[in-house]
């Protein structure tokens, strides 16, 4: 089996597990909807359309970030039940394929939540983007991958910690700040049309390339840790 086939095998397994349990998607969706609805009630978006456009990018990504974190720990919990992770440690398959497969699965789960959340978000916040909307098709997948690739890695890193639910946000949030800044600014630029998102998209691409490479290279060490 080549590397891509190993990744696909892990991805297929994670999708099948999620299809049967719905643990990740249900939790994320509920959490993200809750944040969006509560914030929509907290201030009246219809009365302040300009301000709403300016902060909507931030609200969307913060809701997705926190929602994704609820799923990231869950995704590795499946591997620790029955000590399945030990079977992976003993397998001859490349360890990083397990990581890439899981990150791809998490990416698909968060994307599924985005697909449901986007129209609801648009309606609740009465959004009419003033910039080039098609650029969201670049920004959303890039931003989502930036969140899940680090999140999946640091969730694995915190697996052996007794306080892993606390440790993940403590590690993930600071390290995600550059990505968050880039994805929020890029999204805001599309919604307001006040500035070009190109620079922020480039920052996001650089972040994704650097952190994906680092996570893939370091995962074997994380998996082999005592």
């Amino acid at each position: 089996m080549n590397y891509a086939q190993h990744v696909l095998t892990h991805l297929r397994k994670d999708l099948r597990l999620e299809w049967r349990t719905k643990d990740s998607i249900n939790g994320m969706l509920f959490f993200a909807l809750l944040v969006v609805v509560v914030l929509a009630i907290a201030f009246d978006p219809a009365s302040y359309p300009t301000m709403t456009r300016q902060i909507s990018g931030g609200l969307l990504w913060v809701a997705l970030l926190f929602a994704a974190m609820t799923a990231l720990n869950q995704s590795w919990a499946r591997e620790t039940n029955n000590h399945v992770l030990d079977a992976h440690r003993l397998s001859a398959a490349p360890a990083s394929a397990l990581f890439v497969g899981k990150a791809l699965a998490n990416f698909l789960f968060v994307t599924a939540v985005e697909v449901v959340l986007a129209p609801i978000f648009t309606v609740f916040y009465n959004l009419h983007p003033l910039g080039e909307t098609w650029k969201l098709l670049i920004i959303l997948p890039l931003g989502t991958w930036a969140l899940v690739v680090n999140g999946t890695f640091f969730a694995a890193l915190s697996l052996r910690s007794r306080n892993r639910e606390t440790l993940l946000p403590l590690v993930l949030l600071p390290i995600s700040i550059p990505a968050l800044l880039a994805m929020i600014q890029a999204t805001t630029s599309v919604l307001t049309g006040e500035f070009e998102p190109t620079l922020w998209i480039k920052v996001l691409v650089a972040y994704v390339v650097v952190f994906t490479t680092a996570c893939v290279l370091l995962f074997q060490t994380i998996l082999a840790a005592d």
Partner: protein
Amino acid sequence: MPMTNEVRDAAAARPDEIAAPALVLDRVSRLYGSFVALREVSVTLAAGSSVVMLGENGAGKSTLLKLIAGLTSPSYGTVSVFGESPDDQRGRIAYMSHATMLYDELTGLENLTYFGSLHTEGVGRAELEVQAATALREVGLDPEVGSLRARRVGEYSQGMRQRASLARVLLSEPDLLLLDEPFSNLDVGSAQRMIERLLAYVAEPSRSGLARTLLLTTHQAQLAQPLAQSTLTLSQGRLVSLIETGGL
């Protein structure tokens, strides 16, 4: 701790096999905080050995298996499997622990097809499913019988889970098979069938052409006697003896 007389005798009995040992532990100690789980254990097992490890609860049996599997590192001393570190022998070692190492949400066949795919090269999905079904059939979990094809591992009884776990490790066709109390949840009949399967497994040469090596822990020494070519005894983290007991 220096090697006991029995250990030296067992080693001296098969000088030809010592030239290519499956396992060498050299003064291995494992500490958990201030607790010493293993204390200067030295042992050499030739390829093709079938060894039953005995010892009271907390004697260090499971720790020793985890060290050999490379799932934990020794605090002192060295572990060598087929002349290399256990980490460099991934795929050649299989370990069955108290936990099943299977996904509860998948069926037995799905689990084995998945794990089988991680261990085999150039085998198609259909072929993998056939191999997985055969492995399950050999431990009495034929996926074509009754509701087993659709039944998830989480819905299995403890004994079925244990047998599915054995099927998982055998499917990877390891050169070194480590089993931690494989008979603990089985009735006598199932345990007997498991022993027969293990006897057949050890008798076959591995994919690499080496004789297969088996090391298992149990509290049921009588039951495991047919597999006990040698018996290794641990007590309070120390190697007490390694003697030939004439199994196989």
